[in-house]
């Protein structure tokens, strides 16, 4: 702490080349100016070259009509929409597969990583085989495997397999009944949301009370009852909040209902299974970094194996796990751009593919695409760094 006080006292800067602070500042400004000049120089060169070749430049194309169809759009989209809209459609598709893929990969990675350390020989070996197989095969091949070898040879829509009543699996994907909204939907969802928020508060209160007095409060039962009963009451008063719309067989394919495209499923499976193999190794390394004495001490205190893992080992392992885990999540997001190979309309396929080709404005389109991946990655790593700061060991 003494260093901090010294620095605070020396904050007045002398305008002399002998002042190391001033020197450092000058050099940093010079370096920054050089970088900015380089960027400006590249941009100006590219701009002039494009102008000489009569290639259109600028971002005005984002407002022009796209004129092509996209098979999966989470936001309203039609052929009359603009390129900017097509960009958003692609972005949403990328975020969807990245978010779901991350959740699946982290869950599966933790399970496999823990399984590799299991004392059960079979479980440990199976986990090892999983890790060594999946992480050593290129992701693109795995995507091709899931898409061309598993999902496409499925029977056509007319001969589709019935997974559950109303849920069908065919080479057109998984088709399930859709959910439509009614007049009470909004109040139903609002009450459900409030019940969930309330149950978090109840859980916190219960924990605080147990810490303070040692008394147990039946938070679990109270919460389950409130989450079911309160929205249920709305249902009884206002009528059904949803309508179920079953998929029907059309001329070529199912119509209506909700659908998971095989392209989406293949990409999600490929990304999640591949990344989970890496995460499993990170989790294993993290757990093994926690000293054996910690487990023995926890057992000596009478904690069960599961409690030892959850309360003693994992919290300490997390600080080793989080930084490399962040890299894996970033990798998963960036790897989702392989979607173009199997026809899933992600950002690269829609925007850096079709839009680039229709407009020919490669520099702008690629710059935007790179910028988007940069922002997604920076946001992810910012969130993970904040989480890391919370779980990091605090030295006192």
């Amino acid at each position, binding site marked *: 702490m003494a260093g901090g006080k010294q620095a605070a006292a020396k904050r007045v800067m002398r305008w002399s080349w002998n002042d190391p602070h001033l020197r450092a500042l000058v050099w940093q400004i010079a370096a920054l100016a050089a970088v900015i000049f380089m960027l400006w120089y590249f941009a100006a060169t590219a701009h002039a070259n494009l102008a000489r*070749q009569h290639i*259109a430049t600028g971002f005005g194309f984002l407002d022009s009509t796209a004129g092509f169809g996209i098979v999966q759009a989470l936001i309203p989209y039609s052929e009359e929409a603009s390129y900017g809209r097509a960009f958003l459609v692609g972005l949403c598709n990328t975020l969807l597969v990245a978010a779901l893929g991350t959740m699946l990969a982290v869950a599966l990675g933790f399970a496999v990583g823990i399984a590799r350390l299991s004392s059960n020989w079979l479980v440990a070996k199976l986990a090892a085989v999983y890790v060594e197989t999946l992480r050593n095969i290129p992701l693109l091949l795995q995507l091709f495997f899931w898409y061309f070898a598993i999902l496409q040879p499925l029977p056509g829509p007319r001969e589709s397999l019935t997974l559950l009543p109303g849920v069908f699996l065919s080479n057109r994907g998984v088709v399930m009944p859709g959910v439509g909204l009614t007049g009470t939907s909004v109040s139903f969802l609002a009450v459900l949301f409030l019940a969930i928020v309330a149950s978090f508060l109840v859980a916190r209160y219960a924990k605080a009370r147990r810490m303070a007095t040692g008394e147990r409060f039946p938070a679990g039962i109270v919460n389950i009852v409130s989450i079911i009963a309160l929205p249920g009451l709305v249902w009884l008063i206002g009528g059904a909040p949803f309508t179920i719309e079953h998929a029907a067989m059309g001329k070529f394919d199912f119509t209506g209902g909700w659908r998971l495209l095989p392209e989406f499923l293949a990409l999600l499976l490929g990304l999640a299974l591949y990344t989970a193999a890496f995460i499993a190794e990170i989790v294993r390394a993290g757990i093994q970094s926690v000293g054996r004495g910690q487990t023995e001490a926890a057992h000596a205190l009478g904690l069960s194996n599961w409690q030892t893992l959850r309360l003693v080992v994992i919290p300490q392992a997390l600080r080793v796990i989080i930084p490399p885990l962040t890299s894996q999540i970033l990798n998963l997001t960036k790897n989702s751009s392989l979607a173009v190979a199997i026809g899933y309309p992600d950002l690269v396929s829609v925007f850096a593919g079709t839009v680039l080709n229709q407009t020919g404005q490669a520099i702008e389109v690629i710059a935007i695409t790179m910028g988007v991946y940069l922002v997604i990655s920076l946001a992810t790593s910012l969130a993970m760094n904040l989480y890391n700061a919370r779980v990091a060991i605090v030295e006192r």
Partner: protein
Amino acid sequence: MARRPSLLSRIFPFVFGLLVGAGLLYFFLPGPGTTAVKPAQGQPAAKAGRPAPAAQPLGATLATVRERGYLQCGVSTGLPGFSNPDDKGVWTGIDVDFCKAVAAAVFGDDSKVKYRPLNAKDRFTALQSGEVDVLSRNTTWTMSRDTSLGFNFAGVIYYDGQGFLVKKASHITSAAQLNGATICTQTGTTTELNLADYFRSQNMTYKVLPFEKNEEALSAYDNGRCDAYTTDASGLHAQRLILKNPDDHLVLPEVISKEPLGPLVRQGDPQWEDIVRWTLFALIDAEELGVTSINVDQMKASPSPEVRRMLGAEGDFGQALGLSKSWAVDAIGAVGNYGEMFERNVGVKTPLGIPRGLNALWRNGGLMFAPPIR
């Protein structure tokens, strides 16, 4: 003693990333009309222009090609009849023959050409950046490609139109029955747009699955992921032959678009554009005048002034292009006239079996009409 990094040092990477992004945006936001004319921007760019092959002075493409010793020709990744490598890696097809004709006109040697296989998605960037000198890759001539992409089309080598391939088992006999169908295609082509236009104008719905590569789109169709596969009609005929059972598939009679396919070059080098354009015209004129790869040397003695001008026996039209007197003789000698190219690669005697149709000479009721060499 652990010192926590300051807040500033933690957020610096993010701030820096945003700054760089903002800096890049700044230069592209103003339109070309406002900034391109500013001398302040043009000056450093002119100095920097040298390393970029795209920024050569006018007429430099021919010099670059000569200096390099061979022609870089952009072709498809494999489309039988147009540009397709055989099992020994030898390229054949009508688009490939055109590359050879240009190489022969420039060097007097049709082997001085290297083929660069390009996806539909990458082809324009490859031409814009100077990676290829000419793109001869079953590419449709459209207004936006001619104008805002910065290209010039040399002419039309094949008049085509977009069609559909379906399975016979589906009992579909007309495109009007495709309402609600899922359709596979290749991304980055005019077919994606024509498809949207056609279904919109017919008030029908559809789902499109665009793949990066033709082979993947075709395989998805073959596996039943799609109800129909769409591309140019010539491509449908060619790709039907690659399928497991070609006889199980049917090309629908409807042609939903105009697809004039032709070679293209970068804008800004009129001399090179003329060389490519007049090589194509010479091949078409040669058919009209009865000059073939076999009789091209005897025809130099022909009494017809038109033939004599084309073959360099009279006047020096090659010089006007910056080429030798024998430019057309070399091109025709290498690949034959347009009719020979057509019959050898896609004609009725080939597996594709496409009749001349629109691609016949104007005299025979087709659209092939080249300006005279005079």
